[in-house]
């Protein structure tokens, strides 16, 4: 029995090796002619299909024709540069910004490392110097639907924090990013450590993903400060995504973070976040119309020598696509300051965006903010953004 099986496979293998196009044997099919000839292709007699067992291997697929000539840069990472130029008018004593500023130039290097991992490096060049925004390896082939990341990465906390500056629908980031996450303008919270995520399928084709991240106890420029090396920061997120027909989808997520804040050897900060994103994008009937509603709620409990500070932050923003290349949006935001929760900042903003192509963008934003205690700022911004090179697609 075993011998017969062996002979069967051996015969099949030999047939293949000899280039016998076994599948053509029962039904002589016309060869594909890449240059279509006027001659009508012969009708293949669809022979009664009683294909006998031996060697039913069809013709192997032809070699990919797409590959260009071998070139020495083949294994180089994909390199892209994203330039972000920002002009501003108006007076803001609390969060001043220059009249003209190259806010950030992001340079990215992305490549597959080996059959097991890929690596992504994002450097940010600004007037303050060069900063490693993110630098991590992702291990793609773990068991149990797991995926792991090691290096420096944007923390999986809420939605906006995970996004790169140039993918935001505004020229700036909403107040809780500064007041709760204590980030400078235009930056998000990144940490150095490891991250594990697991895909969990829910009934009804519902996507969900759980993250667990452990990072160094000092991160986010003062957000977390570890008194000792062992005081790490822990982050967990669970997000659920579901389509409602072709045109609508919703994502909700919850994040929790815990770590030491360095105000005393034992003081800690916990952060909670709930995020909600609704998208509408009709696939047919209405070309160039879409709408996205984003909202996040932040809650920070920070132990300080003067007592526990319970600060809350919130924003909601809607962006509507007016035409093929035109968008408009509005945002409302408020946030208590994590270090002194009695101070609450508020603001509203409106944006108008023109995207000449996928690779460039012009955006105008009007912003009104009222900082505690009663400092008002009216500002206008104009942003020019461009992308050159092979920038990889962004996660949704």
């Amino acid at each position, binding site marked *: 029995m075993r011998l017969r099986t062996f002979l069967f496979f051996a015969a099949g293998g030999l047939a293949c090796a000899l280039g016998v196009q076994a*599948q053509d044997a*029962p039904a002589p*099919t*016309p060869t*594909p*002619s*890449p*240059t*279509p000839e*006027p001659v*009508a292709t*012969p*009708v*293949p007699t*669809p*022979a009664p*299909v009683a*294909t006998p067992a031996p060697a*039913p*291997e*069809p*013709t*192997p*697929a*032809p*070699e*990919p*024709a*797409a590959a260009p000539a071998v070139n020495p840069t083949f294994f180089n990472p994909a390199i892209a540069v994203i330039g972000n130029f920002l002009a501003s008018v108006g007076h803001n004593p609390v969060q001043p910004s220059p009249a003209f500023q190259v806010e950030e130039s992001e340079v990215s290097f992305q490549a597959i490392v080996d059959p097991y991992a890929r690596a992504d490096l994002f450097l940010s060049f600004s007037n303050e110097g060069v900063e490693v925004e993110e630098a991590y390896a*992702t291990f*793609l*082939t773990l068991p149990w*639907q*797991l*995926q792991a990341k090691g290096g420096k990465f944007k923390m999986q906390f809420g939605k906006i924090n995970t996004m790169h500056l140039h993918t935001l629908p505004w020229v700036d980031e909403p107040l809780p990013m500064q007041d709760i996450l204590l980030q400078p303008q235009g930056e998000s919270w990144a940490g150095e450590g490891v991250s594990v995520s697991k*895909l969990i399928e829910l009934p009804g*084709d*519902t*996507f969900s*993903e759980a993250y667990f991240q452990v990072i160094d106890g000092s991160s986010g420029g003062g957000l977390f400060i570890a008194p000792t090396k062992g005081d790490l920061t822990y982050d967990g997120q669970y997000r659920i*995504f*579901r*389509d409602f027909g072709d045109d609508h*989808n919703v994502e909700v997520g919850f994040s929790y973070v815990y770590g030491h804040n360095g105000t005393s050897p034992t003081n800690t900060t916990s952060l909670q976040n709930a995020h909600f994103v609704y*998208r509408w*994008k009709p*696939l*047919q009937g209405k*070309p*160039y119309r879409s709408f996205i509603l984003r909202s996040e709620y932040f809650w920070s409990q920070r132990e300080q020598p003067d007592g526990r500070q319970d600060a809350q932050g919130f924003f909601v923003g809607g962006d509507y696509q007016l035409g*093929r290349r035109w968008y408009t949006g509005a945002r409302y935001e408020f946030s208590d300051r994590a270090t002194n929760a009695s101070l609450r900042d508020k603001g509203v903003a409106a944006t108008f965006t023109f995207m000449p*192509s*996928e*690779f460039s963008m012009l955006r105008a934003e009007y912003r009104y903010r009222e900082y505690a205690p009663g400092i008002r700022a009216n500002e206008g911004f104009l942003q020019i953004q461009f992308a*050159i090179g092979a920038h*990889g*697609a*962004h*996660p*949704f």
Partner: protein
Amino acid sequence: MKRIAVALATLLTLAASPAFATMKVVTSLQDFSSIAEAVGGPRVEVFALAKGYQDPHFVEPKPSFILKLSKADLLIVAGLELEIGYLPPLIDQSRNEKIRPGGPGYLDASAGCDILERPTGTVTRAMGDVHPFGNPHYWLDPDNGRVIARAIAARLTQLDPPGASSYAANLAAFEAKLTEGQKRWDAALGPYAGAEVVTYHNSWPNFLKHFKLVAAGYVEPKPGVPPSPAHVVELINLMIEKKIPVILIEPYFDQKTPKSVAEKTGATLLTFIPSVGGVPEAKDYISLFDYDVKLLAGALAAKKGTRP
């Protein structure tokens, strides 16, 4: 009596549930899922990421696609960077090693197909949304459809050897249908060989070449760039001068400008379907061509009749 009923029920269940595990096939385009379905028959279960009525260049990388990809045995893509804007991160997040490029479950359908418009000189984005590896709308040539079907059959056989004879039989049946179809389509469009048309996006080089038609111009000045007033004037002049009878537009573009061009030049504006599922009538790869060919032949015949 009861025993017979039980036996009957068992038999029915046995007959209803196939005795093999179905192969889960995910494709970027509905065209490939239609061909995969024809070749795979009941042994495959297909899902297309982009719907036939949507612009295949701009597909949102929705997490729900990650779920589909995580369970896929085979992923069939158009390649030539058509999916570059959404598919790579989805594959990464799918945690499915089989369907990574180079894996046994990754099939680039462009392999072996007749690919047109491979840029030879320097490619820059000043040229618009050019595809540096050639025009990715190659499935619109039925000869390429045949190549794709064979590649899919070969790959399915590799992944699911017990289905070999079934795949071979389905492939032969599909090819026979395609050959029949090609006779019909050639007969319908044959009389108009050499006719010039204008198309909105450059989606049709393979289709036009196959049926010996010529694209005299495009409504888009450059791929992916919406028409400017100056370009529209140029296009109108060209169409009047060359007496171009039809403008073909994909269903996912704004019809406003092409409509006004058609009015000014007396041409017919045809919503041409680039993919299976673009309209309910184009329910599979064969009926896609039936639909488009009938539409175009009808319009060309009408124009011929009315022209002095």
